[in-house]
């Protein structure tokens, strides 16, 4: 269920799809229209940037392989004046491009070919995050699975009993929570948790992530929340 459908007063979210392939545009349009989004289309990067400025959509769905402009440049351009969520469409295996897109300010990515429901799940997650950021009053407690994080008291409960997390582990969890549902690149995490001088030490990140998993996950080798995206970064899933 999309959030916006529960509230009849909310306006239908507008999505701008920047994609050069007409077949993909056709089915994404059919899919999103059926899910009650309003869709605008752009077949090229320049037109996409222009429409993003003119229409001010709620979310941009951007194909990285455009004929006229590099998709990364489209992200940079839009980011100069807007923080609207950008979800990138990219071929599987092109990790480098995805990292570049995320570091340039994209919110998330979907690998082509998409699994059913993947695009709308990513769109929903990004829109929800944007809505939370807009309200600007983060909840005091966040609950997911059997985990409960009290942001004011910096306490973490698993199955009702308190779990001790070190300051760095908490910081890591906090950053992931702030971007819940969205992939955060290794580089972004290192920068936000340990500071820009530790960008070249991803092993630390992996050690801390392993420790956090052991504290929060029932089976750390089969995690439900703290998900690794190999070659890219990490994602905190708060709904399963």
């Amino acid at each position, binding site marked *: 269920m999309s959030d916006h459908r529960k509230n009849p007063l909310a306006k239908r979210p507008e999505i701008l799809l920047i994609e050069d392939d007409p077949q993909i545009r056709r089915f994404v349009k059919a899919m999103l229209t059926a899910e009650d989004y309003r869709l605008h289309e752009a077949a090229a990067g320049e037109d996409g940037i222009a429409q993003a400025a003119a229409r001010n959509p709620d979310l941009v769905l951007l194909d990285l392989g455009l004929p006229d402009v590099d998709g990364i440049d489209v992200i940079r351009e839009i980011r100069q004046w807007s923080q609207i969520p950008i979800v990138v469409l990219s071929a*599987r*295996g092109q*990790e*480098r491009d995805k*990292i570049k897109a995320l*570091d340039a300010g994209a919110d998330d990515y979907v690998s082509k*070919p998409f*699994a*059913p429901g993947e695009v709308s799940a990513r769109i929903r997650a990004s829109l929800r995050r944007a809505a939370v950021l807009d309200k600007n009053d983060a909840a005091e407690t966040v609950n997911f699975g059997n985990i409960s994080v009290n942001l004011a008291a910096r306490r973490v409960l698993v199955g009702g009993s308190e779990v001790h997390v070190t300051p760095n582990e908490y910081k890591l969890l906090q950053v992931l929570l702030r971007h819940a549902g969205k992939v955060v*690149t*290794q*580089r972004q995490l290192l920068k936000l948790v340990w500071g820009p001088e530790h*960008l*070249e*030490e*991803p*092993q630390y990140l*992996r*050690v801390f*992530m*392993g420790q956090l*998993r*052991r504290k929060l996950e029932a*089976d*750390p*080798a*089969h*995690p439900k929340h703290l*998900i*690794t*995206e*190999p*070659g890219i970064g990490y994602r905190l899933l708060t709904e399963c």
Partner: protein
Amino acid sequence: MKSQDKPLEDKPAVPWWQYGAALIVVAVCTFIAVSLRSYLAAANLVMIYLIGVVGVSAKFHRRVALFTSVLSVAAFDFFCVPHYFSFAVADSEYLITLAVMLAVALLISGMTSRIRLQEAVAAEREARVETETMRTSLLSAVSHDIRTPLTSISGAAATLRSHWDRLDKNTRDELLGSVTDESERLSRLLNNLLEVTRLESGVHLHKGWFPLEEIVGAALHRVERQIAGRPVLANIPADLPMVAIDDVLMEQVFINLVENALKYAPESTPIEILARNQNSIVEVEVLDRGPGFAPGHESRVFDKFFRGRSDKIRGAGLGLAICRAIIEAHGGSIRAENRTDGGAIIHFDIPLGDSPSELDSATRRQS
């Protein structure tokens, strides 16, 4: 399939060391000849040099062989023909010896080079034929695997389009389901093919230090939909050191192995993933309770396009070939076994990796 990289005709640059080696060969021949020159006739000393010429022509470039021939004649004249240590010749009879020696040496070097050239050409032709056969078998395997899902997709879509109103909802759902399933299958096949081709043309590993647990976790998350609640037990000791691996490729290994186990083993049976550190080598096992491997298939299952129990379960036979390529690129090995009490084991090991030069390139790849 690469043709041999031997120095053949018309290559402009002959490595300088070949000339050096030829020089040494002539020096050795001279040493032997000089030590024997009081016992043997000059004509027999020539033979020693000719052996050197044959040796050099068999191994090195034609120009080096030519150089050896001329040098041998000069050395023979200088050291073995009276007056010794002079190019002057005491008896004019020796002029004939020298001329014949030069002629024979040139002939030998020329012939040897030609034989080598022919050998190389033959080897190349053979390699080309082999590539051709492989390409043909690859094409036939792939075209069959592509045609089958394409037939279902276009058939289902065409049926839906022309008979939409006459089909009941269940049939429509079924046909639509086969369109999505078969396209997913096509895309998987294509990914696997690309992967195999890429791996075969030489893998460049982006190694970093990773906890194996994290890689297994990522792989299990990726196949969550196929797992669909089936019991998958990962037993990875918490004190297992980090391993120097390419995370993206190693995730693929686990995905392929778990997918195989899910495909072949009955739904209620558990799939296990075990890992341990054995003298700086990480040993990993993926075990299932499926039918196991047919006798004699244990080593062949890693061959490209080899399908184990192919009638019931579909696939292109690339998954394990990909695993082997990745494991071997990591300096490890992989093998298949049957469990004594029923089921299959895939066992692989990879070195932990301790060289500082292998330190994390995962960050470098981001820049």
